[in-house]
């Protein structure tokens, strides 16, 4: 059998090399084994059996892939790199198991109960100030505590302007998201408010679970399919016209349920119909305008870093910027290389801490050069990774979700038509 049958999509690669400069790990490591076309060669060789699935070299280079899919945005031939990587990681899962810490995270996230317990623990560390205290400590502990500390928000003002929307744009259920609901609770409520302010009617979707993205990326597609089925059923029950997601990584996953369940005859069509209704929150806001707001206190300088799973996986580029531009007098400055990964990449910052930091450091330098007080990004992983980097480098810039800023602007002045 050829690579086309064994690893569908790999036959599209003609090895032109146009992906090289788009790849953060190639730029950091200067080795084609850590580039998209080099990894495709390795994945094909594993699929065809010319390389043993347990080959340490191949596994190391594949493990070092962020999965940011920036190569897909550069590829003229449309190689579905993300799918190739997921298929390969699924193939390798038994012979090349994940580190214990990563497996632990996957187990926790697959269980709503364990997730809630873990998030509660994290919030305790955050509320008691332990996270802030240890945020500058060296090593992994310090980095994790800094990530946690970066999610701290000042208590929101009690009185919010009443939403002005009339709900005519249809009903929207939101994905809570494990980390978003656990650590970015305020951003989740802000998401609901800004959607209402822009004429969507928010409905709840009880029974929803983790999206399964971390599981798919780690090669545990079976568990991801179980989660996907539960989510499809929960959102179907909600009766919502659309599903809004404020976490780019989760949104990309939800939009790919059709692909994830393509071989399941009972769920295939439901999954496709579900995926077709999923939107990033910024897409919904852009479709509605969004309504103008603000200005914000002190008209801060804001810059925007595109989450890879929004820009490259979902191909959503402009809507988050439109949401930010709706804030009156906002001093929105472009961030150089905003299309490059920050190094967060789901579990990556946990399992490849060194390389993750190397990818982050040019990002921090670019942010510092903009002089922005706020860097906006619509994904919890990016917010925490960049946020932690800012704290640990002593910067005063903070990382915020775009809807947090829009919501704060609405809170000051109310949305205007």
């Amino acid at each position, binding site marked *: 059998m*050829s*690579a*086309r049958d064994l690893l569908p999509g790999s*036959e*599209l*690669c*003609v*090895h*032109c*090399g*146009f*992906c*090289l*400069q788009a790849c953060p790990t190639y730029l950091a490591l*200067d*080795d*084609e*084994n850590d*580039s998209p*076309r*080099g990894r495709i*060669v*390795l994945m094909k*060789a594993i699929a065809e059996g010319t*390389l043993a699935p347990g*080959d340490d*070299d*191949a596994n190391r*280079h594949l493990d070092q892939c962020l999965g940011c899919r920036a190569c*897909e*945005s*550069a*590829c*003229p*031939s*449309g*190689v579905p790199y993300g799918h190739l990587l997921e298929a390969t990681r699924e193939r390798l899962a038994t012979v090349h198991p994940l580190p214990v810490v990563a497996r632990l995270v996957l187990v926790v996230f697959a269980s709503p109960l364990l997730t809630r317990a873990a998030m509660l623990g994290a919030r305790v560390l955050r509320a008691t100030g332990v996270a802030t205290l240890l945020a500058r400590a060296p090593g992994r502990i310090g980095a994790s505590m800094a990530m946690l500390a970066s999610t701290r928000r000042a208590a929101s003002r009690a009185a919010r302007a009443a939403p002005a929307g009339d709900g005519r744009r249809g009903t929207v259920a939101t994905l809570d998201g494990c980390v978003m609901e656990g650590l970015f609770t305020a951003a989740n409520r802000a998401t609901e408010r800004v959607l209402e302010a822009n004429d969507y009617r928010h409905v709840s979707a009880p029974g929803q679970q983790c999206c399964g993205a971390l599981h798919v990326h780690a090669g545990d597609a079976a568990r991801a399919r179980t989660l996907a089925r539960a989510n499809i059923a929960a959102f179907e029950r909600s009766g919502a016209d659309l599903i809004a997601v404020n976490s780019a990584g989760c949104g990309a996953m939800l939009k790919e349920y059709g692909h994830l369940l393509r071989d399941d005859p009972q769920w295939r069509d439901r999954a496709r119909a579900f995926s077709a209704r999923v939107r990033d929150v910024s897409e919904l806001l852009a479709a509605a305008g969004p309504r103008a707001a603000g200005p914000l206190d002190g008209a801060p300088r804001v810059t925007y870093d595109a989450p890879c799973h929004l820009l490259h996986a979902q191909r959503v580029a402009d809507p988050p910027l439109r949401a930010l531009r709706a804030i009156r007098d906002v001093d929105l400055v472009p961030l150089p290389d905003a299309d490059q990964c920050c190094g967060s990449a789901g579990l990556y910052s946990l399992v490849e801490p060194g390389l993750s930091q190397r990818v982050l450091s040019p990002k921090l330098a670019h942010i510092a050069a903009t002089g922005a007080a706020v860097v906006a990004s619509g994904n919890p992983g990016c917010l925490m990774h960049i946020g932690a980097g800012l704290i640990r480098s002593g910067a005063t810039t903070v990382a915020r979700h775009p809807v947090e800023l829009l919501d704060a602007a609405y809170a000051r002045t109310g949305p205007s038509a």
Partner: protein
Amino acid sequence: MLSEELIAIVGERHVLSRPAELLAYENDGLPGYHSRPRLAVFPGTRDEVVAVVAALWRAGVPFVPRGAGTGLSGGALAGDVVLLGLQRLRRIVAVDPVARTALVEPGVVNASLTKAATPFGLHYAPDPSSQTACTIGGNVAENAGGPHCLKYGVTLNHVLAATVLLPDGEIVALETPRDGRAGYDLLGAFVGSEGCFGVALDVTVRLTPNPESVVTLLADFRSLDAAAHAVSAIIAEGILPAACEMMDDATIRAVEASIYAAGYPVDAAAVLLVELDGAAAGLADDVAAVDRLCRASGARDVRTASDAAERARLWQGRKKAFGAMGRIAPDLVVQDAVVPRTKLAPILARIAEIGARHRVRVCNVFHAGDGNLHPNIPYDASDADEAARVHAAMREVMELCIAEGGSITGEHGVGRDKLAYMDRLFPAASLDAMCRLRDAFDPRRRANPGKVVPARYCREWAGVTDVEP
């Protein structure tokens, strides 16, 4: 042991010797060839390059220099010898906006150089389609071209000096004879030597002022023939476009299906992308003339890019077209032949006829203004019958181009892929002369052995045994 000596110079991470890690270096940008290097070594500084080459010299081991591995003639194939990757040397040492020059290391990416020159209103003119990935060192080795070389000249015309490391470890400074200095143009010999004469440690290039005004036209034709006649008509009118590119229907559809979709008409048999630039005064006359000549040759429509963003899209589509060929079939032969511009129309017709006779799909995307053809044939290599027909057709195409007074390469180089055509193009005495020129730089055949000139034509050829394909 050689690998231990190399590790001592560049560090363990930058010497690859295990089979899995050498897989990615078995080929360059040309699909269809695979040959595994014995070792791959990636020095990070100039001193490390010098030390590595000295170690290889002492060990008597040949090497193949490689930039980004985007070459399209198999020039960076390093079967059983050492692959010397130079992509880590990517420092832009200096940009001099007054002298309009830049001093760069060989691993600097072509597009990065232009990015560094942009704040000064300058750019690096040679713009191969792979410019977002390929390196200046590779460009110098291949004497790379690109769409805008029609007006601005190829790499050779933009390299002012180079510090060259010869395979025996000697470092020589080569400069273009100018300012009244006399002597042979050894730099001219080095540019385009395909890695056979040594390694550039640094290169001084010319930077070109951005034109005051640029207009990009897209003309849409019902036949390749009409588009080819339009090219001849434009040149005959005395207009020198900055670029004049042609794409046929299969290529257009592959690009339009991709992320680089540029808005090319998918029902056209061919499009011409013509760029005119220069002083704003008088440019409108040339634009009107090109528009008129295209329509007179049978263009259905001629439109002009309305802004810089649309111009960039039109160019991105053209430049990424080669990569988009993967959408048509998993394998690809890429060719690069030059024909007299006046014969473009009849030769394109003959190529189409050759393709039809062999039942293969020739996709044309090329520098029409230079008569530099890129007939590409996407195919499925797992189908032995189709593969045989593809190679037979390509041989006929190349023989046709030679018979019509053309050449076998405009910009991709001979590499390994076109070795077999060299003795059809040149008499034995010429090939022997090339070998003797090489002797001046690399008498022991240590740098990129077995490329460019078939070994049997070099009388004094000293005996590397593992180089014939």
